[in-house]
């Protein structure tokens, strides 16, 4: 690859331009990591021991995980239908599923708040069942689910599209019901897409902030805590938490990527 680049001016140009993106991301993160871990390690260690911080990071990972589980359970059927069948209005449904990606996060937050708040159409019904969204963990889950489900559905849909439909047809002729042909043939062959879609959905959930503070400022997820600390204690108070969050997320995603690679090799 590199020897090829040397003889190709276009590749050299593209390589330089591409490296700007990579460099920008590295610069932003490494500067923060360096100033925190090397210049001010004491504050970082204090943060690691702070139960409020650990609680907020755990809450972030946990709520996003639940949001992803919901996206997987509801998203697989939708992805399968969108991949396998042609019908009137399919374009509209696909566009609707992508809406959470395009609208501003605060707009999503306002929309969800009016739906899920205690006096909201859905919020009222659920509050009778004892589930409250406003300023509650479930509100965070629902906001994360809302913004991350398009990523899961899109990836899973591409996965189902990549499975030859004749495989399921043959399974049917061999005696499999539609359900059996789905979970014995289509589903295992889409595993890798489903797994990586779930990782993306989880990551998207963790990174959500705008919609969450509108529907549930409390309990505080990591991003909310970082903002609160920034407003009261400035960079000094907020940066250590940011660094810890980055490290936790980075390690988790690397591990998950490795698992998904191994899973896909079967």
């Amino acid at each position, binding site marked *: 690859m590199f020897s090829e680049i040397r003889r190709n001016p276009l590749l050299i140009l593209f390589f330089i331009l591409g490296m700007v993106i990579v460099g920008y991301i590295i610069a932003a993160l490494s500067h923060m990591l360096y100033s925190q871990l090397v210049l001010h390690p004491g504050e970082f260690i204090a943060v690691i021991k702070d139960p409020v911080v650990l609680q907020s990071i755990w809450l972030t990972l946990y709520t996003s995980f639940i949001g992803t589980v919901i996206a997987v359970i509801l998203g697989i059927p939708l992805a399968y239908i969108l991949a396998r069948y042609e019908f009137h209005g399919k374009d509209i449904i696909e566009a609707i599923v992508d809406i959470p990606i395009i609208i501003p996060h605060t707009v999503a937050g306002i929309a969800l708040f009016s739906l899920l708040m205690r006096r909201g159409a859905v919020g009222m019904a659920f509050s009778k069942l004892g589930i409250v969204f406003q300023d509650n963990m479930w509100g965070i889950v629902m906001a994360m689910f809302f913004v991350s489900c398009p990523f899961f559905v899109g990836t899973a849909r591409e996965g189902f599209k990549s499975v*030859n439909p*004749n*495989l399921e*047809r*043959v*399974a*049917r*002729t*061999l*005696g*499999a*019901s*539609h359900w*059996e042909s789905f979970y014995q*043939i289509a589903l*295992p*062959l889409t595993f890798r897409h489903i797994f990586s879609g779930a990782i993306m959905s989880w990551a998207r959930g963790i990174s959500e902030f705008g919609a969450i503070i509108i529907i549930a400022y409390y309990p505080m997820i990591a991003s909310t805590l970082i903002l609160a600390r920034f407003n009261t204690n400035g960079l000094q108070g907020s940066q250590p938490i940011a660094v810890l969050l980055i490290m936790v997320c980075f390690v988790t995603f690397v591990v998950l990527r490795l698992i998904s690679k191994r899973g896909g090799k*079967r």
Partner: protein
Amino acid sequence: MIRVENVSNNWGEFSLKDISLNIKEDEYFIILGPTGAGKTLLLEIIAGLHFPKEGKVLIKGNDVTFLNPEKRGLGFVYQDFALFPHLNVKKNIEYGLKLRKVPEEEREKKVTELVNLLKIKHLLSRNTTTLSGGEKQKVALARALAINPKIILMDEPFSALDENTKSKLISDMKELHNKGGITFVHVTHSQEEAILLADRIGIMMGGTIVQVGTPDDIFYKPITREIAKFVKIENIWEGKVLDKNQDEMTIDVNGKKIVALPDHFKVGDGVRLIIRPEDILLGKGNTSARNEFNGKVLSVVKHGFYYIVRIDCGFEVEAAVTKQSIENLCIKEGKDINIFFKATALQVIKR
């Protein structure tokens, strides 16, 4: 065994129009037609993978039009073989048996029987993605045979294979069919496969079955000009019935008089004459052929193991000739030559 009654379906570019077929028990039936004729769709309707908009499908006299595919017990082999990539060869073959909850011992027995029959025992633990085309095809066939189907449907089963593998598999298929007990319905665009395997052929064009008959019927007596063209007959002459008696019918083609067997046509009717290039003889006299004309050779083109000679005798004739005849008769462009053909070899259809 299989009856298709007035089946129609309309899916934009793939539409079936009023298809009726009657496939007999133990028959090797080939649905032959150009690409895009709707052959696969028809096969999938027989399998229950699609339901027709109109019409009925009957298997052994039972109406199965809307019966789910898993309840039909038919074997299906696709052009791309559709082997399950996450299962090895053995698990592919026994997939249908597992669904039927056949005990392991019996499954083993059946798998062994099939791999011995198809000579693929050495592949059992292999990953399906590493197999050659011919091996994949045999595994797909073994998987279909495992459920003891009375009917096997095959969609272009040989078109993804090289010539040698293909001809070996064709003889395997013949052997399998000769054992009896299985009705084969095989979709293809290859006339070679149809000639080699079919008991009967249904010609499918533009979403409908246009002719059903034995290979001889189809290749020598096509009933329309389009079918004749499709089975590679270039000798299609337009003419008019001049005279007709009990023994023969005289047809005028560009001023030449051609003798054919009498048919239901009347004097004055416009007709088309169709004759295979192999039925045109070249040379000098002494045959019993009732039609003899003199013409000039337009071209000689090599065509595999034989030559196609085009001759102008007032109407254009195409003859298939062996290399030996070309040499013996010194056939070359511009040469005068006599052609002969029998009245019985002519197929007369309405214009």
